[in-house]
């Protein structure tokens, strides 16, 4: 790199530190607000810091709201969606990359084309289909349309194409069935791609708001982001309660991110996915 300039370096460092502080500010606000007591809020003159720190907000969330149920709904649907998406993407990717059949090109192009379709375009018919299937207010309404991912199929095909054909032939001679072949030989070879896809699928399933908003109304069936917004509407005044709920749903995501950060960043640059 070209010559260092201590002056510019320190300006850069100050700029970054200030910007990073701004980025963390809303988190600080969220945590501190969650610790405010009702007294702080009613007095109306509550500052940045809680005057009488209390855990009342957390107690109310855990007592008055089916918080465990929400977490369960989110966890179950996100895990099923992620597992299914990884499986169907690898399977379809394998078929499209290494098998030959009539209409393959057209089918693959069709799947690829759905990547460009904004969700707003298909949400109305998808709602009508889901309603016809009798799934409104059912967790399956969230899971079923998300079992496949065109992006996943596309990525898996790209990565599986690079696997040498000889390796697959060798396994076939040893009598390995196609499904076994995919699970025990192909899957491990594309593991970096699968783990990136898995993390992204899980995150977007966990954070999804629009689709659950359309198909879930029953408070006990809601996933966390949806429930949080609903809960916000019923607890506008006591925002320490809402902030406590926000803290509780942010902690698991942040924890997951900090654990898988390396794979996450790698996946983002590898796939250019958003």
């Amino acid at each position, binding site marked *: 790199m070209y010559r260092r300039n201590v002056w510019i370096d320190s300006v850069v460092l100050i700029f970054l530190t200030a910007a990073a502080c701004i980025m963390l500010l809303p988190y600080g*606000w969220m945590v501190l607000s969650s610790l405010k007591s009702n007294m702080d809020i009613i007095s109306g003159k509550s500052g940045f810091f809680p005057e009488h720190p209390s855990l009342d907000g957390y107690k109310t969330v855990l007592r008055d709201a089916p918080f465990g149920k929400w977490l369960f709904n989110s966890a179950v649907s996100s895990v099923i969606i992620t597992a299914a998406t990884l499986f169907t993407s690898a399977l379809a990717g394998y078929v499209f990359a290494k098998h030959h059949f009539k209409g393959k090109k057209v089918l693959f192009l069709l799947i690829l084309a759905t990547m460009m379709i904004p969700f*707003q*375009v298909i949400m109305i018919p998808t709602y009508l289909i889901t309603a016809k299937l009798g799934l409104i207010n059912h967790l399956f309404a969230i899971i*079923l349309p998300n079992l496949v991912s065109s992006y996943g199929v596309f990525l898996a095909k790209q990565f599986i194409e690079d696997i040498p054909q000889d390796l697959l032939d060798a396994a076939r001679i040893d009598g390995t069935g196609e499904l076994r072949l995919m699970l025990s030989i192909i899957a491990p070879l594309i593991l970096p791609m699968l783990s990136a896809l898995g993390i992204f699928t899980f995150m977007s399933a966990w954070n999804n708001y629009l689709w659950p908003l359309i198909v879930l109304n029953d408070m006990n069936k809601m996933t966390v982001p949806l429930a949080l917004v609903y809960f916000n509407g019923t607890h506008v005044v006591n925002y320490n309660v809402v902030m406590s709920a926000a803290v509780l749903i942010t902690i698991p995501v942040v924890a997951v991110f900090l654990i898988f950060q390396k794979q996450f960043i790698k996946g*983002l640059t590898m796939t250019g996915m958003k």
Partner: protein
Amino acid sequence: MPNSTIASRSKQTSAAQTGPAQYRSERRFVFVSLTPVLLLFGVFAFLPIAWSLILSVYTYSPLSGHAVFVGAGNYVRMLGDAVFLKSLWVTCKFVVITVAVNIIITLLIAMAIQRVRSRSLKDLFRTMFFLPTIAPLAGTSIVWSTMFHYRDGLFNMMLAKMDIAPVQWLSDPHYALLSVIMMTLWADIGYNIVLFMAGLDSIPDMYYEAAYLDGASRWHMFRHITWPLLGRTTLFVTVTTVISYFQAFPQFQIMTKGEPYNETRVLALHIYDQAFSNSNMGYASAMAAVFLVIILFITWLQLKWGRTQWEY
């Protein structure tokens, strides 16, 4: 086992194995594995696209249950619908401003982080900027709406410290869109910072060294090395950001609901409201079709510009 052995073995047998049995079992595998996958794509992707386009020439309310064919009626109605036209305008305003500011900020921050020498400090900064992108946007929107509170929100508290009159962040028509833009930028810049950092990493140091020996200024280096070599990344980042901001929804639905005076009524929110609050599913589908055309147009532009700019 050495590679050559595998290769020669497979050559012998793959010739021997193209028998009908092998062929049949492969056909069966393709059929059995692809059928459920294609069925799901069919029911939840292909069918809805076609259905949406068909629905756009009907008036349909799920409450009454029967559809009336109106031809281009919905599209004509759009042209005279002040709220729709306004939402189109607001969407463009939101996308253009937010994308432009996003690209400038993220490129600046990415270049700044790249200058940090310590590896761990670099990672720490990247993590801090990336953290908001992983939090659910719905939760983030709620936290930000409390920060925008008139009476005891964070922003008015800070303004009060500076002796500036408080602002109705989310309900003043001059500030509402700006407030949502601030929140969106906070929640979203992490992605592009990471992508720009990767793009900067791929520029070889020797270009800068050569430029330095030639006595080039910092601005010249940026103008003639960094910017052109980053072209591909910038194009990719811009297009994906434009497309994702066109579809921005939770922050608008939660923070402003399109108010005040429809100043924050973006198209995505308007389609949702028409379809699910007003039960005008035909009309909403027609708007969705317009939405689709806009997105496809942007994608086409990407392909067109991409072809000319990627050759350096």
